[in-house]
């Protein structure tokens, strides 16, 4: 009897200790480091952030900005993937790698970025995963709460998005693309519930996100009238790259005639006036190719970081489901492009 009691005491003390080790309380070190941001989003959000695991695939300038932002914010872990060997082009908008690393032939882009990211915040576990994300086991995605792909070919984007959707737990999917001075972010949080705080009263909110494929399948004539021209332009260029077997951004102005033909085909099929996709815009996008404009990387990487923080912490309205920024007009616009709800309960009937 006495022994049993003694044993019980031990385990209860032990489990309490475990809870503390789990990070239920922020350490003094964390409180000091995160002081200013805890004043923005609160301790609970900070705790949730510190238990979040993020995967980033494709380390262009925007992705690097995003990585910096969430490492500083204090996520639990960040895993980065990019097996490319460092070239001068790859460093155009990259502030993590010194230029003499171009000579360092043994290391991949991800490995070199990893070393710098670790320094930003010793409390975040940063690591590299090698290989092709589309080829990894589906279970691999279970390790993450958030997956971000950058400059990802159309088919791979769809594939990775679907892999995220098939997991038991919710794996948030984000894609980001930068072409010169224009950029697009896509968000898929699947079924997402959160508390909306409006002047002292809280109300439950529910959002249903379509997959990338389902979103871009919405007929153009069903879209609201003033949808960003970038949305249409990027779909045409996406189609062009798919047909020609090009990598994202592997374009030049000499591709314009073929792209204009595709524009006509698409607009005819979707009964959209071609003026919604200005030739000048297509030309700019083709000319820019994969070259990034660093101020745009900072802006998109910032918005993306903010969105991930919002979604993880459940604080604030998350973006649904596209975001556009064009340096030419300076507008940062949200577009909700979802299939119309078909069921009586308001869900949209998408798988």
């Amino acid at each position: 009897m006495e022994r049993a009691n003694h044993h019980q005491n031990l385990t209860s003390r032990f489990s309490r200790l475990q809870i503390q080790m789990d990070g239920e309380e922020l350490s003094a070190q964390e409180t000091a480091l995160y002081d200013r941001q805890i004043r923005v989003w609160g301790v609970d959000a900070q705790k949730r952030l510190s238990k979040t695991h993020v995967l980033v695939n494709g380390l262009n300038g925007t992705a690097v900005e995003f990585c910096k932002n969430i490492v500083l914010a204090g996520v639990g872990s960040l895993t980065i993937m990019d097996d490319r060997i460092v070239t001068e082009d790859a460093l155009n908008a990259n502030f993590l790698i010194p230029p003499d690393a171009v000579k360092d032939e043994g290391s991949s882009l991800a490995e070199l970025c990893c070393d710098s990211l670790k320094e930003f915040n010793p409390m975040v576990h940063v690591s590299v995963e090698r290989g092709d994300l589309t080829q990894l086991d589906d279970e691999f995605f279970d390790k993450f709460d958030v997956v971000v792909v950058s400059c990802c070919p159309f088919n791979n984007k769809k594939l990775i998005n679907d892999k995220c959707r098939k997991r038991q737990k919710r794996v948030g999917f984000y894609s980001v693309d930068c072409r010169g001075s224009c950029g697009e972010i896509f968000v898929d949080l699947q079924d997402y519930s959160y508390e909306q705080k409006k002047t002292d009263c809280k109300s439950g909110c529910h959002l249903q996100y379509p997959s990338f494929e389902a979103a871009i399948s919405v007929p153009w004539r069903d879209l609201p009238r003033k949808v960003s021209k970038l949305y249409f332009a990027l779909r045409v260029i996406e189609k062009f790259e798919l047909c020609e077997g090009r990598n994202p951004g592997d374009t030049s102005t000499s591709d314009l005639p073929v792209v204009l033909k595709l524009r006509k085909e698409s607009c005819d099929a979707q009964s959209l006036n071609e003026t919604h996709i200005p030739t000048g815009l297509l030309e700019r996008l083709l000319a820019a190719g994969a070259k990034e404009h660093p101020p745009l990387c900072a802006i998109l990487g910032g918005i993306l970081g903010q969105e991930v923080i919002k979604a993880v912490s459940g604080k604030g309205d998350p973006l649904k489901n596209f975001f556009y920024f064009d340096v030419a007009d300076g507008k940062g616009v949200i577009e909700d492009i979802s299939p119309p709800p078909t069921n009586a309960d308001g869900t949209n009937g998408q798988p």
Partner: protein
Amino acid sequence: MASLDSQTEAIKRAKVLMVGAGGIGCELLKTLALSGFQDIHIIDMDTIEVSNLNRQFLFRQTHVGQSKAKVARDAVLKFRPHINITPYHANVKDPEFNVEFFKQFNVVLNGLDNLDARRHVNRLCLAAEVPLVESGTTGFLGQVTVHAKGKTECYECQPKPTPKTYPVCTITSTPSKFVHCIVWAKDLLFAKLFGDKNQGNDLNVRSSDGADSSKHTEDVFERNLDEDSEQYARKIYDHVFGYNTEVALANEETWKNRNRPRPIYISDVLPDRITKKNAKVENGSTESAVSAMSSLGLKNPQDVWSLVENTKIFLEALRLFIVKRTEDIGNLTFDKDDQLAVEFVTAAANIRASSFGIPLHSLFEAKGIAGNIVHAVATTNAIIAGLIVIEAIKVLRNDFHNYRMTYCLEHPSRKMLLMPVEPFEPNKSCYVCSETPLLLEVNTSTSKLRDFVEKIVKNKLGMSSPLIMHGSNLIFEVGDDLEEDVAANYALNLDKVLAELPTPVTNGTMLKTQRRI
């Protein structure tokens, strides 16, 4: 593409000045370097603190205490070794940064955190005729504006909200919000106990205007030779939370439409002395920073302490100041990074709040209020820095038709998270950037030149070293390089009324004032 090339060229040739190497500054310096800027000068007087590290990503733990401008430069040169970055670990208000200095730049980019420095840079940019890109962030909100003389409004064309102040009696007698208790604890009690004894302090009023002032004189705050530190702390406690509240209650008029406060005496809250059980802590805490929280075993700064806990912290913090920081007493001013000071102010504010029926707050919250700590995140700073560079490039290309003022919003407005608007025109009656005369209504036969200089020119127009002219006659100027007889003459003028100056100022007189260069 010709236009892209000309843009690249303009960026390469540009010489830019950044003011501020903090939250926005770190992001800005990085984005400028990546964008191809090659000649960047950066001014910041601050040194690096731990709480900067969550967003000022160019800095590491090992840099704490070093110059922000210099460390930022070294960090950026690692990934762009061949550009020129010139750091100045100095105050932008230093005289070396004069109009001539500003004139060498194509554009000035502000990443500042205070009104005063922003106004100063605005005026220098106007005088040097260099366009200014101004910015600011709090939490998820941010803003970028372009100020170009004659083309867009200047930073001061619209009045700016000034820092909040509170009526003295709200602080001394009738607090209704927690912030009032913080101001009392920080500016009155803390200053009275640990600050400069020669400074005026409204806490005196309460201790000497009572009926039995013979007993409760200012000497209450002096420690008697036979008192130990805890006896002294208990005496102060009873005086400020008990006796002073009784005195205030005696004035019935005050409480007609207010909730009456409850006097709090130490014997009600903590009947027994804590005494010597702290002995072991005293040995342990010699090396690390002195803290009442750690001596009492309170760990979480997010917890809201009870009245008893606040009382214990108050006594312990006061005791620790006396025992461990004796030499600081008499010349302390409140510093949000001084743990013991924050603990003391938190506890004192909470005890007062408790007395007045105001909800108590955690040390974390109290520190934010007492230290005017800005809410800051990395992402907003990164976005704002990107927007600054976009506007800076427009300035370099002289593309002023496309200048935009951009708001970074927390909640979308008309689908926009980043909302550009056309910049405002200069305000024609702006006393900073317009030439339009200001009308001053003043009695010229009773107002002295001194009043005009102090109240109007220095206070209202914000010119700290002005030069005032009447036609071609100098009436007054400020400077340490003046000839003795000239200075004496100005001193004489100061005490004359306006109508009796050597060149009289009367109805309809036009005066010109300008910053002395």
